[in-house]
């Protein structure tokens, strides 16, 4: 059987399949459907220094081949997260990657400091959630802000740091380079693309927040393009995501240059997806007599 182990910033993953932050809770809900021990890692829902109530409802809307969400990063804050969610995740033999969100640099730093003292494997910094208004969006959309926040986090973080990039930019490679230059250990992309849906009969926005982040198979070609572009631009590993619905999609991201892949919105459509991605990747490698998954990472240039 093919080797599916990959390594990101010194952390070994039994396979390249992880979850996209915000689509898998902290693993508990989907542990009814999949064996978390089979996954390369679980990336948690974003956690802030204090509890966040999130946005008003409606928070989600279906669109052609995908969905919009404007959850607004509702989360219980780092205290409850460490006590409850991290305790739960520790029971499994999988990497734990904690997604960190904030409204100011000091918010982020506070969470990072708290996580430093835990035994999580990595942290992912959400500088790109399009639904948080108070400045957070700017972090991920300007190269100098990306550099600055990465730099500050990197200087105090005791765990490998993954910067999660926004696709809502003119040139994502600028952001990738800024993150790399500031010491990021890896980047993950893409976060959701800002979209809007109008209910023409009610003459109003479907989402209370007006706009929401789009995810699902509809955005996959944009995500693959950005992963490819970043893979040509930086040397740090990439966790690729955006509409992955099956093993073939995962292979596409790997070939475009991602070292790992994340299942996102399609978890909602197929709660067994993460496990099926692990199986699907293995099946593809075996069928094509590829001995090591590393042989296909970035093989299309």
């Amino acid at each position, binding site marked *: 059987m093919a080797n599916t182990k990959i390594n990101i910033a010194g952390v070994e993953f039994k396979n390249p399949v992880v979850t996209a932050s*915000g*689509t*898998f*809770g902290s693993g508990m*809900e*989907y542990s*009814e*459907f999949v064996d978390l021990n089979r996954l390369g890692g679980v990336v948690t*829902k974003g956690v802030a220094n204090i*509890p*966040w*109530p*999130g946005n008003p*409802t*409606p*928070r*989600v*809307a*279906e669109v*052609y*081949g*995908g*969905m919009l*969400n404007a*959850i607004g990063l*509702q*989360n*219980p*804050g780092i205290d*409850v997260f460490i006590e409850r969610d991290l305790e739960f995740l520790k029971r499994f033999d999988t990497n734990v990657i904690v997604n960190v969100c904030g409204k100011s640099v000091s918010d982020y730093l506070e969470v990072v400091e708290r996580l430093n003292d835990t035994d999580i494997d990595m942290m992912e910094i959400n500088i790109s959630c399009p639904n948080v208004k108070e400045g957070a969006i700017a972090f991920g959309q300007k190269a100098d802000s990306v550099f600055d926040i990465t730099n500050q986090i990197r200087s105090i973080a005791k765990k490998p740091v993954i910067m999660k990039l926004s696709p809502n930019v003119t040139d994502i490679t600028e952001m990738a380079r800024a993150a790399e230059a500031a010491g990021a250990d890896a980047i993950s992309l893409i976060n959701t693309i800002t979209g809007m849906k109008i209910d023409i009969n009610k003459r109003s926005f*479907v989402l209370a927040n007006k706009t929401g982040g789009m995810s*699902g*198979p509809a955005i996959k070609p944009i995500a693959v393009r950005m992963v490819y572009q970043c893979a040509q631009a930086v040397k740090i590993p990439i966790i690729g995501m955006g509409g992955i619905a099956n093993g073939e999609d995962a292979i596409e991201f790997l070939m475009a240059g991602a070292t790992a892949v994340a299942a996102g*919105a*399609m*978890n*909602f*459509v*197929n*709660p*067994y997806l993460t496990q099926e991605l692990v199986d699907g990747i293995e099946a593809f490698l075996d069928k094509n007599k590829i001995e090591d998954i590393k042989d296909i990472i970035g093989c299309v240039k």
Partner: protein
Amino acid sequence: MKKKTVGFVTRSEEISVDIFSLWIETELAKDAKPGQFVGIFTNDRSALLPRPISICEVNKDKSALRLVYRIAGKGTREFSHLQAGRRVSLLGVLGNGFPCEEAEDKCAVLMGGGIGVPPILELAKVLSGNGGVNKPIAKEVICVIGYRDAQTFLLEELQQYAKVLVATEDGSIGTKGNVIDALNENKLNPDIIYACGPMPMLRGIKNWAEPRQIPAFISLEERMACGVGACLGCVCTTSKKDSHSHVNNARICTDGPVFDSREVII
């Protein structure tokens, strides 16, 4: 244990204008309770998310669920074309369901409005001990059901299990007005209320029940994505800290859809 599974349609029919009844043979039936729901998936790859539809009846012997829904969009329109023998993907069983045990030896009033009527049927069946076939849970079961007009549905079926009072907006049947008007007109004195229907109705029930110190269990709706409590899409404001995020936002799909009216701010 929740699962995504394939069910077999055994019957599908239009029971009122744009209101369809669907019987599905599925393993999910064995754990299903009144007030719970399932997610149904379309075959349309442009419409990916599961459609949450409440359970109208459970037949444990045949391992079948009955879903009654209104055509509201392209998903439900597709379902309306399902025929016996077709397969359908289901996610379930979802949600907490109505707390039936709370009705023990009480006079329970079950209120349903519009497309909120279907879950009331299974609830009436359970609380009445299947219309008296088994030992009833509640001392008395009265249904108060609201429709827009004379185009009713499930009415005769409800009458198998309970006394049924009707309100119609246009007054064509029963009380002219809403279910609260029917409650008042008939001078009902419920010990406990269960309700499912549009938000203004639920709000009315909350405002009627709480000053009278009557427990009211109301079933809420919101746009959903995952259906299993992961995405935090379908929250409602709660008066106390919710168990998940501690921010007074409970997840309708998992903490609900049924809430004690005093727990939620609607």
